[in-house]
């Protein structure tokens, strides 16, 4: 008997704009100049939000914070491709996704200052609270997508998670189900190459995370996560496919975490400055800037104006966040159940929280 090859797996890598800002026009998604500018402005806003969050943390004005520096294209390009009412299941590092969706920045700052009210998502946002447990929210997106199918809605659900999260059983289980039932879900892996101090190579021996979709019977693609156009196009295509009944897609955004894991971490203890320097040169805003300059969409003055506006917005939002009244102690028990239990009523008195 001959040994036959019965399956071959090919993994595509998508890059549309290279590090010099040169675009492959055959791959370029149809985005108007205004849309491109909007993407740029959103990235600046997200970066401004992020830098201010880091300095607020140093001043003790917010708690531990997870920086998105370097991952702005992966987050904003993908979020932009999702429709307003597509459900998003983010991990804790997705502040950029929240910014793109227009989430009130003051609420995000409240959240990072340790106020759960900052993640009590207002009406009209199709965002779930950031998942602090790593990777275990991936099946939730599959479940939400399945619910949309049952309800006959033309919507998708998207799960954001890291390279570390891709080692979890929940990730495989969520993907496998989605593959079997063609659930309209997008798995957006933010491969920033580190899970705290654990390098990608110690998460999986596979060459890509994208290829993990093959075992679940659907397409996985790796994109240059620092190229906002590649991220946008891959996500947009996946959304279209899912909405047309084509089932799930896994998108691995190959990017890099330029900052420490969180403000409680010190990455210099486990990775070299040289490695970080290489990636600083590849960060997504440099590339978008070069591309826009070639198209005549960018000038220094334009960027200065955008940055100034972003600073002003962020300043106002921080003021608003800090002026927000402290929570009521009764909040501690208020939301555990729909109604207070007899024990909780007693405890309100015992702990002296009743007004």
């Amino acid at each position, binding site marked *: 008997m001959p040994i036959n090859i019965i399956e071959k797996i090919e993994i595509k890598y998508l890059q549309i704009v290279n590090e010099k800002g040169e675009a492959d026009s055959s791959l370029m998604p149809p985005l108007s100049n205004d849309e491109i500018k909007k993407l740029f402005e959103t990235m600046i806003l997200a970066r401004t939000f992020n830098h201010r969050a880091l300095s607020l943390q140093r001043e003790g004005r917010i708690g*531990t914070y997870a920086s998105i520096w370097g991952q702005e294209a992966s987050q904003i390009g993908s979020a932009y491709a999702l429709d307003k009412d597509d459900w998003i299941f983010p991990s804790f590092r997705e502040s950029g996704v929240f910014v793109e969706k227009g989430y009130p920045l003051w609420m995000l700052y409240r959240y990072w200052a*340790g106020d*759960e009210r900052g993640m009590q998502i207002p009406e009209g946002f199709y965002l779930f609270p950031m998942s602090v447990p790593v990777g275990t929210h991936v099946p939730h997106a599959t479940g939400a997508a399945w619910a949309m199918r049952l309800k006959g809605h033309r919507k998708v659900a998207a799960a954001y998670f890291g390279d570390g999260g891709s*080692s979890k*059983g929940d990730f495989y289980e969520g993907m496998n189900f989605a593959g079997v039932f063609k659930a309209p879900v997008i798995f957006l892996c933010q491969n920033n190459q580190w*899970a705290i101090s*654990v390098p990608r190579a110690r*998460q999986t021996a596979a060459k890509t995370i994208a290829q993990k979709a093959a075992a679940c019977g659907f397409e996985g693609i790796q994109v240059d996560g620092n190229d906002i156009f590649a991220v946008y196009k891959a996500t947009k295509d996946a959304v279209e496919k899912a909405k047309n009944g084509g089932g799930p897609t896994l998108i691995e955004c190959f990017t890099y975490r330029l900052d420490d894991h969180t403000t409680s971490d010190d990455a210099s203890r486990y990775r070299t400055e040289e490695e970080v320097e290489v990636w600083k040169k590849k960060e997504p805003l440099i590339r978008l800037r070069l591309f826009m300059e070639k198209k005549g969409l960018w000038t220094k003055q334009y960027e200065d104006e955008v940055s100034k506006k972003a600073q002003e917005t962020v300043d106002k939002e921080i003021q608003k966040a800090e002026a927000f009244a402290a929570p009521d102690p009764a909040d501690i028990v208020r939301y555990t159940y729909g109604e207070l239990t007899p024990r909780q009523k007693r405890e309100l008195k015992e*702990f002296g929280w009743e007004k």
Partner: protein
Amino acid sequence: MPWTKIYSNKEEFEKAAAGSTLRGITYKEAILEATSRMLEQDKSVFVIGEGVDDAGGVFGTTKNLHLKFGKDRVMDSPLAENGITGIAIGAAISGMRPILVHMRVDFLPLTLDQIINHAAKWHYMFGGKLSVPLVVRAIIGRGWGSAAQHSQSLPSLFTNIPGLRVLMPATPYDAKGLLRAAVYDGNPVIIIEHRWLYDHMGHVPEDDYTVPIGKGIVRREGKDATVVGISYMAYEAMRAAEALSKEGIETEVIDPRTVKPLDMGLIIESVKKTGRLVIADTGWKECSVGAEIVARIMEESCGILKAPVVRVNLPETPTPASPALEKAYYPGVDHIISAVKKTIQK
């Protein structure tokens, strides 16, 4: 005995230790030392967990062990809690003695199938021919906005399960001795540590020793009321006892050290003397270790109580993230003081 002492803070320890030749180390150093000694002496021992080779070394408890013993014996693992628990169980039934480390107790719920359906069952299901000498260490977080999913205590998830042991050492001496006891116990053992214990100092012998599993300890003698203080709450109980003593109330403080098995004999003896019982625990009230203690008193020595038991637990709700709410959320020394007074007034 210097080993049985509990010191509320570093200054208190230093005062007591002045002039003594006995060595003092922190709780985290005690864990590191116990682990290091076992890795050195016993090829079957290995450490596995997410980030155990991190420069911080799981808050110092595994610090630099990978440099000394290699990354195969101090293994940083992929992010897969249930999977690595299964892998550790597989290694344990094949002659190894794994120490599986989780940064937070909150990751234990991800491993419940492996612990409850497998590790806890196999000695029984294989008619005693197979044991699972697995040790799982996990840390209770508190403060810095740890919030609902990073601060849970959860011993009762495990105390309910036959086949498991659950240890909650409070002092450096016990942390070292109980870790060694756990590794050589032969049963699957869950050790729940509290992050706020890590910098506490105590006298710890350099030599190897074990602390018997199932033996509690009287931390302070007193005739008026008994306070059982579990894990970090043993310290709060000591502080309460000192304050109450100034008012003429003498509290006996018991640290059970292990919550499955529970040293009920010790607790009952004390309550026979005092007639009054307060239980201070790091977790929630319903079906808690405290609930078990009360039930056992009812079953075994109903009648020794002169007043209703008062329990000091977390309120019936998850931990708030907000620093202001968090401060209100955790009961401490003041709650224990009023609990003791309440039992005495009755």
